[in-house]
């Protein structure tokens, strides 16, 4: 038997930097309708987590209720998942991160789950800046209950039976920016390249990363007259920039001319590069971001790309200043004060 010591092998082919294969990031088979935008997003999540090189056991997958909220079962089966109650995933996610700050949490929600029943919790998640990637699979309808309008349905958009929506849509990206969210992106399920770059960027961000993805419902909202159909989205997408992601573990090469590309460094040392930026769009400028969103809404277009980013703000766990180890697994010796402490407290009460 050979006792020759082999030099540490480089990651074998078809694995990421941690030695995991793409299969390690897959989940159960989807039970959604064929062609659902959500499945396209699921594929990009798998790809992004694989390419970035996330340890699956460190991930917590979280969701509420609805078609979107089923999807965590379809990716990262080696990660713990929690399908909670309708609109309340932010609270679950906050608690999970309080208990274990070493986890990487990904929350998947829908427009009903977020913009209606879950609005209260969503708002406060953003306000706290809880470290979490929050994906909204936005299709403008309640799919699982068969096609009622949601609060992100555009004014004038029509149901399959021709009923027109006469209430204005809530723009979740604009709202998130107002509420102090420091990573706000929007994409389209039909644009995998942009989506995967933004997902990886979200992984590099510390704090709440909001990612609104227009994800057409092929069964209830993909018809003529709908503003959330594949066709409408393709025709009305307004790309802010071409985006590429350079992970922290790769060498940065300077292959562009000054002024041609906007480079933003993320919390983890990765970079995002925004090319051919629309009129020199600067995603670190809050008022420009809000203005652009408003203008697009007025012209019935939807902006995609990295709309706003600020890497300087502390996340909620940093503000709480907790010990570095996960609170969940601190041993009794560290969480139970000694007998002298109780004696001191009792003496004070005598």
């Amino acid at each position: 038997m050979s006792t020759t010591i082999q030099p540490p092998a480089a990651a074998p082919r078809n694995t990421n930097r941690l030695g995991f294969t793409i299969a390690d990031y897959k989940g159960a088979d989807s039970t959604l309708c064929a062609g659902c935008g959500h499945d396209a997003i699921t594929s990009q999540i798998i790809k992004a987590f694989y390419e970035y090189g996330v340890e699956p056991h460190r991930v917590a997958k979280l969701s509420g209720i609805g078609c979107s909220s089923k999807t965590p079962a379809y990716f990262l089966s080696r990660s713990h998942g929690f399908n909670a109650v309708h609109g309340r995933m932010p609270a679950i996610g906050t608690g999970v991160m309080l208990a274990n700050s070493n986890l990487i949490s990904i929350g998947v929600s829908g427009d009903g789950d977020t913009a209606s029943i879950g609005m209260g919790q969503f708002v406060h998640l953003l306000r706290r800046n809880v470290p979490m990637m929050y994906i909204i699979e936005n299709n403008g309808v309640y799919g699982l209950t068969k096609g009622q309008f949601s609060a992100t349905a555009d004014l004038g958009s029509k149901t399959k039976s021709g009923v027109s929506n006469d209430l204005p849509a809530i723009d979740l990206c604009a709202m998130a920016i107002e509420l102090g969210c420091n990573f706000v992106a929007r994409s389209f399920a039909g644009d995998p390249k942009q989506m995967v770059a933004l997902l990886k960027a979200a992984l590099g961000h510390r704090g709440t990363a909001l990612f609104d993805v227009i994800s057409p419902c092929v069964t209830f909202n993909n018809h003529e007259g709908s503003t959330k159909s594949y066709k409408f989205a393709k025709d009305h997408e307004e790309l802010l920039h071409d985006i590429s992601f350079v992970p922290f573990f790769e060498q940065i090469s300077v292959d562009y001319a000054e002024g041609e590309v906007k480079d933003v460094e993320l919390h983890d040392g990765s970079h995002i590069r925004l090319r051919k930026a629309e009129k020199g769009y600067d995603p670190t400028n809050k008022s420009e971001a809000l203005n652009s969103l408003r203008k697009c809404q007025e012209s019935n277009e939807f902006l995609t790309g990295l709309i706003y980013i600020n890497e300087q703000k502390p996340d909620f766990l940093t503000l709480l200043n907790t010990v570095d180890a996960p609170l969940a697994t601190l041993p009794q010796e560290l969480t139970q004060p000694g007998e002298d402490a109780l004696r001191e407290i009792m003496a004070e009460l005598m």
Partner: protein
Amino acid sequence: MSNQSPQTLVAEEDQRSNGGPIINDFSIQVATVNGSGSQSSNTVLMRSIFQMGIPVSGKNLFPSNIAGLPTWFTIRANKDGWIARRKEIDFLIAMNAETGREDVMNLDPNRVVVYEETLKLNQYRKDLTFFPVPFAKLATEITPDSRLRKLLANMIYVGVVGELLEIDPAEMEHALTKQFKGKAKAVALNKTALDIGRKFAKENFDKTVVPYKTQRMNATKGKIIIDGNAAAALGCMFAGITVATWYPITPSSSLCETLADYMKDYRIGEDGKASFAIVQAEDELAAIGMAIGAGWAGARSMTSTAGPGISLMQEFIGLAYYAEIPVVIFDITRVGPSTGLPTRTQQSDILSLVYCSHGDTKHIVLLPASVEECFSMGYDAFDLSERFQTPVFVMSDLDLGMNNWMSDPFKYPTKKFDRGKVLSAEELKKLGSFQRYADIDGDGIPYRTLPGTDHPAASYFTRGSGHNEKAAYSERPDDYKRNMDRLNRKYDTARTHVPQPEITNARGAKIGFLAFGTTHWAIIESLDQLQREFNLPIDYYRLRALPFTNDLVEFFEKHDRVYVIEQNRDGQMEMLVKLELPAELTTKLRSIRHYSGIPIDARFVTDELVAAEKGEKN
């Protein structure tokens, strides 16, 4: 059994004196407006009696308001150690113009009234002893500051009462120094006010006409005074909690606030880093959601609330029951339904706790009766919750949570935390795999893993929808039923793990009392009254938790009648007992209910029992 009617029992009150002064057996009521800062004064008064070695209890009857509405603080001193509320007031301090007349009219004859002179309360009754004091005027002698004067007037009445009841001045000063600890200026000002009150009473009143006196005894040495919420907070801290998420609501807010104070003192390391996270949530839904999220991820997590909060938390609590996630919920109950009387006490959340949420659910509910049990059950709740992977309620009430109670010092919990059936990566390596909802041990309790566990077999998918033993989505009837039956088995296992009842037997008793929580204090005093006055021995089953333990049936078998005594309108605990008993024993059930929002008192129990038993004889 005596055939004395409840009415004739009033005479008993005066038997305290035997002709001489009534020593260490009286209640004082301070009637004032809230926001006037009387709380500190009342605490000083109560503490100085306590420090003289006399058993004492204090109850604050306050409005749901910040300033300007009537509030009453009652101090009961009792040499025999009875610390339940006593209905009758012996010594009234009337500071509130609005309620002055009614306060005076409510008194029994021959009682004593100290009052703000300008209220002219002596016009209403001829059969009381009145002591008019110009509080406002006296306060102007101390300071020109009008806000301060109002506060100091309160300390002046403490001085007056101290003189009339012969409370040791040294103890009063000691109590005052403790109350304003570290604030030299406040101590000095209040000391002046105390002395002015004392001096005024000495110079103007004949204290010998006051029948009530304090006399030093030795019944409180080594005891502490604490409210139930602070005691529960200490229970949580010593249970090693790491996550507390809550939303303000009376009467539970002070639990997490006090917890935060203690945790700052004892759970922050030298590097300034905290071994805990306390978060004030945006509402009760978020509070329970965060606590459940943290419990799922392995933290010892809790929330505290009151009835309206429980209503809001219901959906989430059903999820935690069905998905089997540990979380501890303190319900400091108040008067419902709806907003009800937010600052009054009741035990009316029992049914909404035990069956909290839609679908077939049932929960473990701990029922502390004392501050000591708020501490010990506050502690035990976390062991139970992690052992059974389920929500555990601790049901206290406003009376216990927000009032000051005397107690022996709490004992340090020496046992090791029970973190329940959690599989580590090492254990998974040996096992190879695990099934989240399989009943391996036959006790209905499955094994779990925590997110972050570095083993390929560790992960599972938690959901509130139907699931099989592997935690996979399932709508199969057999999967559903197997799971629900296992949850039932788990609940049955809990019967032998929850705090067991405390059963007190009296010789020859044919009647039993069953009560829980703060009703206890009225019960034990009533048992004494019934024995002494009616020669009626009664056994007492003090329930300390749900689910019921097996000795419930036995207790009913042994007695002709069992009175379930509780503080709600509908006899909620009686209903639960009825469901638990074999049909033939349910005919032994009787019910005594007190639900005015005021804590139940012994005389009420005694009167009700005597009246009911008279009916039985006929």
